[in-house]
Protein backbone atom coordinates (compact mmCIF):
# COMPACT_ATOMS: atom_id res chain seq x y z
CA UNK A 1 0.00 0.00 0.00
CA UNK A 2 2.80 2.40 0.99
CA UNK A 3 4.64 1.67 -2.26
CA UNK A 4 1.49 2.40 -4.23
CA UNK A 5 1.04 5.76 -2.51
CA UNK A 6 4.69 6.61 -3.23
CA UNK A 7 4.22 5.69 -6.89
CA UNK A 8 1.11 7.89 -7.14
CA UNK A 9 2.92 10.78 -5.43
CA UNK A 10 5.87 10.37 -7.76
CA UNK A 11 3.49 10.42 -10.72
CA UNK A 12 1.77 13.59 -9.55
CA UNK A 13 5.16 15.15 -8.73
CA UNK A 14 6.38 14.38 -12.22
CA UNK A 15 3.35 16.22 -13.61
CA UNK A 16 4.34 19.18 -11.41
CA UNK A 17 7.97 19.13 -12.45
CA UNK A 18 7.60 22.24 -14.58
CA UNK A 19 7.13 24.45 -11.54
CA UNK A 20 9.79 26.43 -9.75
CA UNK A 21 9.79 29.98 -11.08
CA UNK A 22 7.04 32.52 -11.26
CA UNK A 23 7.65 33.58 -14.84
CA UNK A 24 8.68 31.45 -17.77
CA UNK A 25 11.19 32.58 -20.40
CA UNK A 26 8.24 33.70 -22.53
CA UNK A 27 7.20 36.11 -19.77
CA UNK A 28 4.21 33.99 -18.90
CA UNK A 29 3.27 32.83 -15.41
CA UNK A 30 4.61 29.41 -14.54
CA UNK A 31 2.05 26.90 -13.37
CA UNK A 32 3.07 25.45 -10.02
CA UNK A 33 1.75 22.11 -11.25
CA UNK A 34 -1.87 22.46 -10.17
CA UNK A 35 -3.21 23.28 -13.62
CA UNK A 36 -1.09 20.57 -15.19
CA UNK A 37 -2.41 18.01 -12.70
CA UNK A 38 -6.02 19.13 -13.08
CA UNK A 39 -8.16 17.12 -15.49
CA UNK A 40 -9.07 20.24 -17.41
CA UNK A 41 -11.60 18.91 -19.91
CA UNK A 42 -13.90 15.90 -20.14
CA UNK A 43 -11.83 15.15 -23.25
CA UNK A 44 -8.76 14.93 -21.03
CA UNK A 45 -10.60 12.56 -18.70
CA UNK A 46 -11.18 10.23 -21.66
CA UNK A 47 -7.56 10.51 -22.79
CA UNK A 48 -6.15 9.97 -19.30
CA UNK A 49 -8.50 7.08 -18.61
CA UNK A 50 -7.36 5.38 -21.81
CA UNK A 51 -3.71 6.53 -21.57
CA UNK A 52 -3.88 8.33 -24.90
CA UNK A 53 -1.76 11.33 -23.96
CA UNK A 54 1.48 12.14 -22.18
CA UNK A 55 1.63 12.81 -18.45
CA UNK A 56 1.89 16.54 -19.13
CA UNK A 57 -1.07 16.40 -21.54
CA UNK A 58 0.89 18.09 -24.32
CA UNK A 59 1.38 15.05 -26.55
CA UNK A 60 -1.55 13.10 -27.95
CA UNK A 61 -0.76 9.41 -28.30
CA UNK A 62 -2.27 7.82 -31.39
CA UNK A 63 -2.46 4.09 -32.07
CA UNK A 64 0.95 4.06 -33.77
CA UNK A 65 2.70 5.41 -30.65
CA UNK A 66 4.39 2.90 -28.36
CA UNK A 67 2.88 4.58 -25.28
CA UNK A 68 -0.67 4.44 -26.65
CA UNK A 69 -2.91 2.82 -24.02
CA UNK A 70 0.16 1.71 -22.07
CA UNK A 71 -1.05 -0.34 -19.11
CA UNK A 72 1.31 1.20 -16.53
CA UNK A 73 0.51 4.72 -17.71
CA UNK A 74 -3.21 3.94 -17.46
CA UNK A 75 -2.73 2.67 -13.95
CA UNK A 76 -1.02 5.91 -12.94
CA UNK A 77 -3.62 8.05 -14.64
CA UNK A 78 -6.70 6.26 -13.33
CA UNK A 79 -5.38 6.53 -9.79
CA UNK A 80 -5.51 10.32 -10.03
CA UNK A 81 -8.92 10.42 -11.73
CA UNK A 82 -10.87 9.93 -8.49
CA UNK A 83 -12.15 12.72 -6.27
CA UNK A 84 -10.16 11.94 -3.15
CA UNK A 85 -11.43 14.79 -0.98
CA UNK A 86 -15.21 14.61 -0.78
CA UNK A 87 -16.57 11.53 -2.52
CA UNK A 88 -15.50 8.90 -0.01
CA UNK A 89 -15.27 6.04 -2.52
CA UNK A 90 -13.83 3.00 -0.68
CA UNK A 91 -10.19 2.29 -1.56
CA UNK A 92 -10.98 -1.39 -2.17
CA UNK A 93 -13.71 -0.51 -4.65
CA UNK A 94 -11.37 1.81 -6.55
CA UNK A 95 -8.75 -0.91 -6.66
CA UNK A 96 -11.24 -3.46 -7.98
CA UNK A 97 -12.41 -1.02 -10.63
CA UNK A 98 -8.83 -0.23 -11.65
CA UNK A 99 -7.94 -3.91 -11.91
CA UNK A 100 -11.05 -4.50 -14.02
CA UNK A 101 -10.37 -1.78 -16.56
CA UNK A 102 -6.62 -2.46 -16.92
CA UNK A 103 -7.07 -6.25 -16.96
CA UNK A 104 -4.46 -7.81 -19.25
CA UNK A 105 -6.93 -10.25 -20.76
CA UNK A 106 -9.91 -7.88 -21.13
CA UNK A 107 -8.88 -4.23 -20.79
CA UNK A 108 -11.76 -1.77 -21.08
CA UNK A 109 -11.55 1.73 -22.51
CA UNK A 110 -13.87 4.68 -22.76
CA UNK A 111 -15.19 5.59 -26.19
CA UNK A 112 -16.50 9.10 -26.80
CA UNK A 113 -18.87 7.83 -29.49
CA UNK A 114 -19.63 4.55 -27.76
CA UNK A 115 -22.90 5.57 -26.10
CA UNK A 116 -23.70 4.31 -22.60
CA UNK A 117 -22.83 7.70 -21.11
CA UNK A 118 -24.85 10.90 -20.85
CA UNK A 119 -24.82 14.37 -19.35
CA UNK A 120 -26.93 15.80 -16.55
CA UNK A 121 -27.20 19.60 -16.73
CA UNK A 122 -28.71 21.46 -13.81
CA UNK A 123 -30.23 24.57 -15.32
CA UNK A 124 -32.44 27.43 -14.24
CA UNK A 125 -35.56 28.52 -16.10
CA UNK A 126 -38.10 31.18 -15.35
CA UNK A 127 -41.51 29.51 -14.91
CA UNK A 128 -44.67 30.91 -13.39
CA UNK A 129 -42.90 34.16 -12.56
CA UNK A 130 -39.99 32.67 -10.63
CA UNK A 131 -36.62 31.04 -11.25
CA UNK A 132 -36.84 27.27 -10.99
CA UNK A 133 -34.35 24.45 -11.43
CA UNK A 134 -34.74 22.14 -14.39
CA UNK A 135 -32.54 19.08 -14.84
CA UNK A 136 -31.81 18.19 -18.45
CA UNK A 137 -30.34 14.86 -19.53
CA UNK A 138 -28.40 15.00 -22.77
CA UNK A 139 -26.83 12.36 -24.98
CA UNK A 140 -24.58 12.35 -28.04
CA UNK A 141 -26.13 11.11 -31.26
CA UNK A 142 -24.88 10.81 -34.84
CA UNK A 143 -26.37 13.49 -37.11
CA UNK A 144 -25.48 14.61 -40.60
CA UNK A 145 -21.73 14.50 -41.06
CA UNK A 146 -20.91 14.34 -37.36
CA UNK A 147 -22.42 14.24 -33.90
CA UNK A 148 -24.62 16.44 -31.75
CA UNK A 149 -25.79 16.60 -28.13
CA UNK A 150 -29.57 16.25 -27.78
CA UNK A 151 -31.90 16.57 -24.80
CA UNK A 152 -33.17 13.10 -24.02
CA UNK A 153 -35.07 13.63 -20.82
CA UNK A 154 -36.17 16.32 -18.36
CA UNK A 155 -36.79 16.40 -14.65
CA UNK A 156 -38.83 19.37 -13.47
CA UNK A 157 -40.61 19.44 -10.13
CA UNK A 158 -43.80 21.23 -11.33
CA UNK A 159 -44.22 18.58 -14.05
CA UNK A 160 -43.57 15.75 -11.63
CA UNK A 161 -46.07 16.86 -8.99
CA UNK A 162 -48.67 17.59 -11.68
CA UNK A 163 -49.01 13.87 -12.31
CA UNK A 164 -50.04 11.95 -9.25
CA UNK A 165 -52.17 9.05 -10.34
CA UNK A 166 -54.21 7.68 -7.40
CA UNK A 167 -54.10 3.96 -6.77
CA UNK A 168 -56.54 1.37 -5.42
CA UNK A 169 -59.79 2.61 -3.92
CA UNK A 170 -58.67 6.21 -4.31
CA UNK A 171 -58.57 5.94 -8.08
CA UNK A 172 -61.68 7.04 -9.92
CA UNK A 173 -62.62 5.40 -13.19
CA UNK A 174 -64.90 5.42 -16.23
CA UNK A 175 -67.17 2.47 -15.60
CA UNK A 176 -67.15 -0.37 -18.15
CA UNK A 177 -70.52 0.53 -19.69
CA UNK A 178 -69.64 4.19 -20.27
CA UNK A 179 -69.69 3.49 -23.98
CA UNK A 180 -73.41 2.81 -23.87
CA UNK A 181 -73.94 6.40 -22.80
CA UNK A 182 -71.63 7.75 -25.44
CA UNK A 183 -69.00 8.51 -22.72
CA UNK A 184 -71.13 11.36 -21.36
CA UNK A 185 -69.37 10.82 -18.00
CA UNK A 186 -66.16 12.26 -19.47
CA UNK A 187 -67.41 15.66 -18.34
CA UNK A 188 -67.26 14.65 -14.68
CA UNK A 189 -63.98 12.80 -15.20
CA UNK A 190 -62.09 15.55 -16.92
CA UNK A 191 -63.77 18.73 -15.83
CA UNK A 192 -64.67 18.00 -12.22
CA UNK A 193 -61.91 15.62 -11.15
CA UNK A 194 -58.60 17.38 -10.38
CA UNK A 195 -56.75 14.16 -11.25
CA UNK A 196 -57.62 13.33 -14.86
CA UNK A 197 -54.55 11.05 -14.94
CA UNK A 198 -56.83 8.56 -13.13
CA UNK A 199 -58.35 7.77 -16.50
CA UNK A 200 -55.14 6.67 -18.20
CA UNK A 201 -53.75 3.19 -18.84
CA UNK A 202 -51.72 1.35 -16.22
CA UNK A 203 -48.52 2.00 -18.15
CA UNK A 204 -49.13 5.74 -18.50
CA UNK A 205 -45.80 7.51 -18.18
CA UNK A 206 -45.94 11.28 -18.67
CA UNK A 207 -43.49 12.51 -21.27
CA UNK A 208 -41.82 15.47 -19.55
CA UNK A 209 -39.63 16.24 -22.56
CA UNK A 210 -42.70 16.91 -24.75
CA UNK A 211 -44.20 19.06 -22.02
CA UNK A 212 -40.88 20.90 -21.64
CA UNK A 213 -40.66 21.71 -25.35
CA UNK A 214 -44.34 22.71 -25.41
CA UNK A 215 -43.93 25.09 -22.48
CA UNK A 216 -40.88 26.70 -24.09
CA UNK A 217 -42.74 27.18 -27.35
CA UNK A 218 -45.69 28.70 -25.50
CA UNK A 219 -43.27 31.14 -23.83
CA UNK A 220 -44.02 29.84 -20.34
CA UNK A 221 -40.51 28.42 -19.74
CA UNK A 222 -37.64 30.82 -20.35
CA UNK A 223 -33.98 29.76 -20.13
CA UNK A 224 -31.88 31.62 -17.57
CA UNK A 225 -28.63 29.77 -16.97
CA UNK A 226 -26.69 26.54 -16.42
CA UNK A 227 -25.55 25.89 -12.85
CA UNK A 228 -23.75 22.59 -12.94
CA UNK A 229 -23.03 19.68 -15.26
CA UNK A 230 -22.06 16.09 -14.50
CA UNK A 231 -21.84 12.88 -16.49
CA UNK A 232 -23.02 9.33 -15.92
CA UNK A 233 -21.05 6.42 -17.39
CA UNK A 234 -22.25 2.85 -17.93
CA UNK A 235 -19.60 2.04 -20.55
CA UNK A 236 -17.51 -0.18 -18.31
CA UNK A 237 -19.09 -3.61 -18.11
CA UNK A 238 -20.95 -4.09 -14.78
CA UNK A 239 -19.79 -0.71 -13.42
CA UNK A 240 -21.31 2.73 -13.11
CA UNK A 241 -19.45 5.91 -12.33
CA UNK A 242 -20.31 9.58 -12.10
CA UNK A 243 -18.00 12.30 -13.38
CA UNK A 244 -18.12 15.74 -11.71
CA UNK A 245 -16.08 18.89 -11.90
CA UNK A 246 -14.13 20.00 -8.82
CA UNK A 247 -13.01 23.62 -8.72
CA UNK A 248 -10.97 23.91 -5.52
CA UNK A 249 -7.41 24.50 -4.33
CA UNK A 250 -4.89 21.70 -4.63
CA UNK A 251 -3.97 19.07 -7.15
CA UNK A 252 -7.05 16.82 -7.05
CA UNK A 253 -9.20 19.04 -9.26
CA UNK A 254 -11.05 19.20 -12.57
CA UNK A 255 -13.15 16.35 -13.96
CA UNK A 256 -12.97 13.46 -11.51
CA UNK A 257 -14.92 10.32 -10.64
CA UNK A 258 -17.28 11.34 -7.84
CA UNK A 259 -19.25 8.13 -7.49
CA UNK A 260 -18.50 4.51 -8.28
CA UNK A 261 -20.83 1.52 -8.11
CA UNK A 262 -20.27 -2.11 -8.98
CA UNK A 263 -23.46 -3.24 -10.67
CA UNK A 264 -25.37 -6.38 -9.80
CA UNK A 265 -28.49 -7.63 -11.57
CA UNK A 266 -31.11 -4.88 -11.76
CA UNK A 267 -28.84 -2.23 -10.23
CA UNK A 268 -28.61 -0.30 -13.45
CA UNK A 269 -32.37 0.32 -13.46
CA UNK A 270 -32.27 1.40 -9.83
CA UNK A 271 -29.49 3.91 -10.58
CA UNK A 272 -31.21 5.18 -13.72
CA UNK A 273 -34.45 5.72 -11.80
CA UNK A 274 -32.49 7.56 -9.10
CA UNK A 275 -30.74 9.80 -11.66
CA UNK A 276 -33.98 10.56 -13.48
CA UNK A 277 -35.76 11.27 -10.18
CA UNK A 278 -38.31 8.53 -10.75
CA UNK A 279 -40.04 6.71 -7.93
Amino acid sequence: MRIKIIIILLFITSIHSVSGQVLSSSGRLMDDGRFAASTKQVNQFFRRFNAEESKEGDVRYYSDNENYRNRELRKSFINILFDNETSDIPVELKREFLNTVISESYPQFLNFHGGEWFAEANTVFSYGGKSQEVTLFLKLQPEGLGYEWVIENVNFEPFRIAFDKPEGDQKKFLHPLSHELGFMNLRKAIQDDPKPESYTPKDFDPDYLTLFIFEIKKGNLKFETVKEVKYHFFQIDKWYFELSQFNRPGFNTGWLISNLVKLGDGDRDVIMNFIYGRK
Partner: protein
Amino acid sequence: MKKYILSLLILFSATSMVALAQDNISPARKQAIDSLALEKVKDLSKYISIIGSKETQFSEATRVMDRAEELFAPDAEMGVSSINNSEIAYYKIRRYFERLMALNYDRVNISWYDIHYISDLERQPDGRYVGVITVYQRFEGTSQEAGLNYRDTTKKDITIYVEKKQTQIAGRTIEFWDVMLGDVRVTETSA
Protein backbone atom coordinates in the same frame (compact mmCIF):
# COMPACT_ATOMS: atom_id res chain seq x y z
CA MET B 1 -3.81 39.29 -41.19
CA LYS B 2 -0.53 38.66 -43.02
CA LYS B 3 0.52 36.41 -40.19
CA TYR B 4 -2.61 34.28 -40.58
CA ILE B 5 -2.16 34.01 -44.36
CA LEU B 6 1.37 32.79 -43.70
CA SER B 7 0.05 30.36 -41.10
CA LEU B 8 -2.60 29.14 -43.49
CA LEU B 9 0.01 28.50 -46.16
CA ILE B 10 2.16 26.68 -43.63
CA LEU B 11 -0.92 24.76 -42.64
CA PHE B 12 -1.55 24.00 -46.30
CA SER B 13 2.00 22.79 -46.85
CA ALA B 14 1.77 20.68 -43.71
CA THR B 15 -1.51 19.19 -44.75
CA SER B 16 -0.63 18.70 -48.39
CA MET B 17 1.64 15.88 -47.30
CA VAL B 18 -1.43 13.93 -46.35
CA ALA B 19 -4.35 13.28 -48.65
CA LEU B 20 -6.02 16.66 -48.94
CA ALA B 21 -9.10 15.30 -50.64
CA GLN B 22 -10.06 13.44 -47.48
CA ASP B 23 -12.19 15.17 -44.88
CA ASN B 24 -10.68 13.21 -42.04
CA ILE B 25 -8.10 15.05 -40.00
CA SER B 26 -4.87 13.11 -39.68
CA PRO B 27 -2.60 13.55 -36.61
CA ALA B 28 -0.17 15.67 -38.69
CA ARG B 29 -2.93 17.92 -39.89
CA LYS B 30 -4.40 18.11 -36.40
CA GLN B 31 -1.05 19.32 -35.09
CA ALA B 32 -0.91 22.04 -37.74
CA ILE B 33 -4.47 23.10 -36.94
CA ASP B 34 -3.63 23.16 -33.22
CA SER B 35 -0.74 25.53 -33.92
CA LEU B 36 -2.93 27.91 -35.88
CA ALA B 37 -5.68 27.76 -33.24
CA LEU B 38 -3.13 28.44 -30.49
CA GLU B 39 -1.82 31.40 -32.43
CA LYS B 40 -5.33 32.86 -32.49
CA VAL B 41 -5.80 32.18 -28.78
CA LYS B 42 -2.47 33.89 -28.06
CA ASP B 43 -3.61 36.88 -30.09
CA LEU B 44 -6.86 36.93 -28.14
CA SER B 45 -4.82 36.87 -24.90
CA LYS B 46 -2.72 39.77 -26.14
CA TYR B 47 -5.81 41.75 -27.15
CA ILE B 48 -7.48 41.13 -23.79
CA SER B 49 -4.35 42.43 -22.03
CA ILE B 50 -4.32 45.58 -24.20
CA ILE B 51 -8.06 46.22 -23.79
CA GLY B 52 -7.84 45.71 -20.02
CA SER B 53 -4.81 47.99 -19.59
CA LYS B 54 -5.52 51.46 -18.21
CA GLU B 55 -2.62 52.81 -20.28
CA THR B 56 -4.45 52.01 -23.51
CA GLN B 57 -6.11 55.02 -25.14
CA PHE B 58 -9.83 54.70 -25.87
CA SER B 59 -9.31 54.89 -29.65
CA GLU B 60 -6.60 52.24 -29.52
CA ALA B 61 -8.75 49.98 -27.31
CA THR B 62 -11.63 50.31 -29.77
CA ARG B 63 -9.34 49.37 -32.65
CA VAL B 64 -8.04 46.35 -30.73
CA MET B 65 -11.60 45.31 -29.85
CA ASP B 66 -12.37 45.31 -33.58
CA ARG B 67 -9.34 43.08 -34.22
CA ALA B 68 -10.29 40.78 -31.37
CA GLU B 69 -13.86 40.48 -32.62
CA GLU B 70 -12.56 39.37 -36.02
CA LEU B 71 -11.10 36.26 -34.39
CA PHE B 72 -14.58 35.06 -33.47
CA ALA B 73 -17.40 33.42 -35.35
CA PRO B 74 -20.60 35.50 -35.44
CA ASP B 75 -22.82 35.18 -32.35
CA ALA B 76 -19.98 33.91 -30.15
CA GLU B 77 -20.58 34.54 -26.46
CA MET B 78 -18.65 34.60 -23.20
CA GLY B 79 -20.18 32.58 -20.35
CA VAL B 80 -18.78 33.76 -17.02
CA SER B 81 -19.09 32.20 -13.58
CA SER B 82 -17.36 32.80 -10.25
CA ILE B 83 -16.45 30.64 -7.27
CA ASN B 84 -19.32 32.14 -5.26
CA ASN B 85 -21.84 31.88 -8.06
CA SER B 86 -21.67 28.89 -10.39
CA GLU B 87 -24.49 30.25 -12.56
CA ILE B 88 -23.29 31.38 -15.97
CA ALA B 89 -23.68 35.05 -16.92
CA TYR B 90 -23.76 35.49 -20.70
CA TYR B 91 -22.12 38.33 -22.63
CA LYS B 92 -21.72 38.98 -26.32
CA ILE B 93 -18.01 39.14 -27.18
CA ARG B 94 -18.06 42.88 -27.80
CA ARG B 95 -19.93 43.54 -24.57
CA TYR B 96 -17.40 41.45 -22.64
CA PHE B 97 -14.53 43.54 -24.03
CA GLU B 98 -16.38 46.78 -23.28
CA ARG B 99 -16.92 45.69 -19.68
CA LEU B 100 -13.25 44.80 -19.42
CA MET B 101 -12.27 48.22 -20.73
CA ALA B 102 -14.62 50.01 -18.34
CA LEU B 103 -13.25 48.34 -15.18
CA ASN B 104 -12.65 51.01 -12.60
CA TYR B 105 -9.10 50.23 -11.52
CA ASP B 106 -6.08 52.56 -11.62
CA ARG B 107 -3.88 49.72 -12.63
CA VAL B 108 -4.77 46.45 -14.29
CA ASN B 109 -2.37 43.62 -14.89
CA ILE B 110 -3.49 40.63 -16.94
CA SER B 111 -1.07 37.73 -17.26
CA TRP B 112 -1.36 34.27 -18.75
CA TYR B 113 -0.12 30.96 -17.47
CA ASP B 114 2.35 29.03 -19.52
CA ILE B 115 0.01 26.06 -19.83
CA HIS B 116 -2.73 25.12 -22.22
CA TYR B 117 -4.72 22.05 -23.16
CA ILE B 118 -6.10 21.24 -26.61
CA SER B 119 -8.94 18.78 -27.06
CA ASP B 120 -9.44 16.38 -29.95
CA LEU B 121 -11.41 17.72 -32.90
CA GLU B 122 -14.94 16.39 -33.25
CA ARG B 123 -17.02 16.66 -36.38
CA GLN B 124 -20.40 18.35 -36.07
CA PRO B 125 -23.46 17.69 -38.25
CA ASP B 126 -22.58 20.43 -40.80
CA GLY B 127 -19.17 18.85 -41.46
CA ARG B 128 -17.15 21.49 -39.61
CA TYR B 129 -14.88 20.35 -36.83
CA VAL B 130 -15.04 21.71 -33.30
CA GLY B 131 -12.48 21.65 -30.50
CA VAL B 132 -11.75 23.37 -27.20
CA ILE B 133 -8.55 25.04 -26.02
CA THR B 134 -8.15 25.65 -22.30
CA VAL B 135 -5.93 28.46 -21.00
CA TYR B 136 -5.51 30.15 -17.62
CA GLN B 137 -5.40 33.90 -16.91
CA ARG B 138 -4.50 35.91 -13.80
CA PHE B 139 -6.15 39.31 -13.36
CA GLU B 140 -4.92 41.92 -10.87
CA GLY B 141 -6.64 45.26 -10.45
CA THR B 142 -5.75 48.01 -7.99
CA SER B 143 -7.63 51.19 -7.22
CA GLN B 144 -5.68 53.49 -4.87
CA GLU B 145 -8.55 55.86 -4.16
CA ALA B 146 -11.02 53.19 -3.16
CA GLY B 147 -8.29 51.02 -1.66
CA LEU B 148 -9.35 48.15 -3.88
CA ASN B 149 -7.04 45.32 -4.62
CA TYR B 150 -8.73 42.58 -6.63
CA ARG B 151 -7.12 39.45 -7.99
CA ASP B 152 -8.53 36.36 -9.65
CA THR B 153 -7.43 33.44 -11.78
CA THR B 154 -9.77 32.24 -14.47
CA LYS B 155 -9.87 29.17 -16.66
CA LYS B 156 -10.92 29.97 -20.19
CA ASP B 157 -12.32 27.14 -22.32
CA ILE B 158 -12.32 28.50 -25.85
CA THR B 159 -14.30 26.85 -28.66
CA ILE B 160 -12.51 26.57 -31.98
CA TYR B 161 -14.26 25.87 -35.28
CA VAL B 162 -12.18 24.28 -38.00
CA GLU B 163 -13.42 24.46 -41.56
CA LYS B 164 -12.02 23.58 -44.95
CA LYS B 165 -12.04 26.60 -47.26
CA GLN B 166 -10.79 27.50 -50.71
CA THR B 167 -8.77 30.44 -51.99
CA GLN B 168 -7.28 31.46 -55.33
CA ILE B 169 -3.52 31.90 -55.47
CA ALA B 170 -1.98 32.70 -58.85
CA GLY B 171 -5.03 31.33 -60.62
CA ARG B 172 -4.95 28.05 -58.73
CA THR B 173 -7.61 26.93 -56.29
CA ILE B 174 -5.98 26.03 -53.02
CA GLU B 175 -7.83 24.31 -50.19
CA PHE B 176 -6.88 25.10 -46.63
CA TRP B 177 -8.20 24.62 -43.12
CA ASP B 178 -9.29 27.81 -41.35
CA VAL B 179 -9.83 28.29 -37.62
CA MET B 180 -12.36 30.60 -35.96
CA LEU B 181 -12.92 31.09 -32.25
CA GLY B 182 -16.38 30.45 -30.82
CA ASP B 183 -18.06 30.60 -27.40
CA VAL B 184 -15.76 31.02 -24.42
CA ARG B 185 -16.50 29.64 -20.97
CA VAL B 186 -14.79 31.69 -18.26
CA THR B 187 -14.60 30.00 -14.85
CA GLU B 188 -13.01 31.57 -11.80
CA THR B 189 -10.65 29.08 -10.18
CA SER B 190 -9.49 28.71 -6.60
CA ALA B 191 -5.82 29.20 -7.56
